[in-house]
């Protein structure tokens, strides 16, 4: 780049930083959004569902049936809060929402135990609540209390080994990916608004009559936000490690390289939005319009393996999908960037397309 270009890019970047430092709301967002999201997702959300309010109907009421109920209660998956007299009353409690699951032990429990061909008891689950179904399923694996004559434990046929997150802590799954979500939230909107605001206030009409080039303007606008994005990344990582004991198994340098690439790609998307939107309000709306599918489809919170094929294709277009892949790879699985070459390539392609599209759409003209 020519020295004149460099000087103009620096002037624009410095101006952006100066304006940002005077805008208290934006500054508050830079720090506030990551911290708030960390608290909500880190403390507030837990996939490892426990303490489900449960009703128990024990029509057998034998030593063994009471032992089974006690075993299930001690797993902490369920809290036994009601003991209705019969199946119908249990159902009514579920309909009313007083309990979300029920354990029904039939009167012929002892016979079924010996028989061994029919289930000894039944668990009823309120299917309207996400997560309860899966959680309660685990109690169906509770082994039966030992009976005289049939000593020994029941061993499951297949053992599940959860690697990299043996305690299955939600924070470990969510916090790394949260870096991507928080960056998506702030970066797209900052850049989109940054350019549109200048257009609304008339600054752009002045700028485009100066010798500044479109690409200099774009780069100058992006650079300060890359720095802001890396600060946010650090903030989320630090809270993740200090508050939620999220391990960083891979290289921190790899992590920041990946983050830098993602930030640039997201800023590119913001620039494209800024060439489409004519008011700050429109830019904001378009920003949120891209944010929601990113959060829902990127695999950040919901596994996209369950989505239909076309949704998975949409997810492939979203930069967050690939960054979540990189984040979980580097932070949790200790992967190197070389091993994660595929998402890296996809992100780079996205960055290239976004910046080219923005530069092509941005004219130094008013019409």
């Amino acid at each position, binding site marked *: 780049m020519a020295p004149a270009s460099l000087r*103009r890019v620096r*002037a624009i970047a410095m101006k952006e930083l100066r304006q940002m430092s005077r*805008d208290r709301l934006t500054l508050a967002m830079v720090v506030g959004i990551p911290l708030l999201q960390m608290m909500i997702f880190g403390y507030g959300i837990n996939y490892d569902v426990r303490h489900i309010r449960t009703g128990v109907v024990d029509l057998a009421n034998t030593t063994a049936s009471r032992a089974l109920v006690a075993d299930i209660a001690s797993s902490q998956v369920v809290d036994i809060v009601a003991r209705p007299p019969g199946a119908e009353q249990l159902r009514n409690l579920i309909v009313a929402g007083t309990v979300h699951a029920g354990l029904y032990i039939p009167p012929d429990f002892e016979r079924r135990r010996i028989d061994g061909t029919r289930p000894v008891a039944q668990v009823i689950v309120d299917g309207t609540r996400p997560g309860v179904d899966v959680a309660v399923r685990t109690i169906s694996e509770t082994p039966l209390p030992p009976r005289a004559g049939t000593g020994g434990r029941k061993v499951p046929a297949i053992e599940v080994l959860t690697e990299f997150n043996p305690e299955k802590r939600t924070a470990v799954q969510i916090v790394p990916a949260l870096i991507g979500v928080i960056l998506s939230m702030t970066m797209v909107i900052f850049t989109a608004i940054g350019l549109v605001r200048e257009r609304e*206030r008339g600054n752009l*009409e*002045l700028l485009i009559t100066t010798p500044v080039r479109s690409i200099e303007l774009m780069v100058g606008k992006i650079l300060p936000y890359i720095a802001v994005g890396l600060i946010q990344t650090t903030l989320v990582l630090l809270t993740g490690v200090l508050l939620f004991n999220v391990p960083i198994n891979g290289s921190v340098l790899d992590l920041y390289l990946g983050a830098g690439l993602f930030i640039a790609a997201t800023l590119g998307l913001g620039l494209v939005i800024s060439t489409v939107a004519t008011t700050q309000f429109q830019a904001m709306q378009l920003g949120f319009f891209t944010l929601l599918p990113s959060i829902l489809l990127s695999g950040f919170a919901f596994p996209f393996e369950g989505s239909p094929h076309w949704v998975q294709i949409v997810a492939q277009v979203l930069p967050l999908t690939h960054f979540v892949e990189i984040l979980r790879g580097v932070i949790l699985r200790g992967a190197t960037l070389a091993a994660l070459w595929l998402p890296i390539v996809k992100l780079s392609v996205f960055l290239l397309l976004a910046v080219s599209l923005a530069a092509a759409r941005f004219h*130094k*003209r*008013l019409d």
Partner: protein
Amino acid sequence: MNGSAIAIEAHGLTRRFGNLVAVDHAELSVPRGRIYGFLGPNGSGKSTTIRMLCGLIQPTSGTIRVLGLDIPRQAEALRMQIGYMTQRFSLWEDLSARENLDFMASIYTLAPARAAQRIARAIEEYRLAEFLQRPAGTLSGGQKQRLALAATTLHEPPLLLLDEPTSAVDPQSRRDFWESLFALTATGTTILVSTHYMDEAERCHALAILDRGRIVANGPPQQLMAELPLQVLEIEAEDITAARSALHELKSLRSLAQLGLRLHALISPDEPQALERVKRLLADQHVQAVVREAPASLEDVFVGATLPAPGSEP
């Protein structure tokens, strides 16, 4: 750069926005080192023309040459040669006056020593010292305008395009501003300025009057006033309303404006003895009045030029 005596030349300049013809076959020739004015009401095409001249808007048809450059094709080459002041204050309101100047100096890539010297000069010239550290958004209309002119002229452009620079400014600031413009022309700067103030238009070396996208008159203000093809009469009457209605049947009356206790009448040149005719009409209606011929003002020129042609509209 070529040494032509003409700074801006445009032929058949036309711009349409959908069905609206914003600028309609404008012919322009602006000499170097002069202040050239665009006088016209809002929506007459002043801003659109200025924006086309600096390459911000593409003409629908017509040719433009500015400082020897073919516009819009060579618009980028023109950027260093012009200073453009938008109608609205377009510097950054959350930056201080000083920061705005520093930023513009960097954007025009002035060498650090020259930037420092030019900024120091501008601070003195445009009396910016008193509010240099204040955010530009908190400045008064006149201060903003001084700052904008300082920022626009840092790189010493030979051509300034000023789009209604004084629309949000008090009369004293307007006078100061025009003093600054004359100081700039003394150093050879060409200035194109649009306005809707008659007194400002009268200060220009030459001007074009725009009306609904067309240039309806152009030339030096004195010449336009001297050559106004209308007769100007002033009628002083006690009963203005009666005088007004007495003149109602004068078919050759083009315009009648009230100035306090006087009426200012523009009468078409084909009325042979306008003075006598008006006196007789007033006497017939028993209106006590003094009627005399008056010199044409620039406002008369403007009104005359923007009137619909006789007989064209009811």
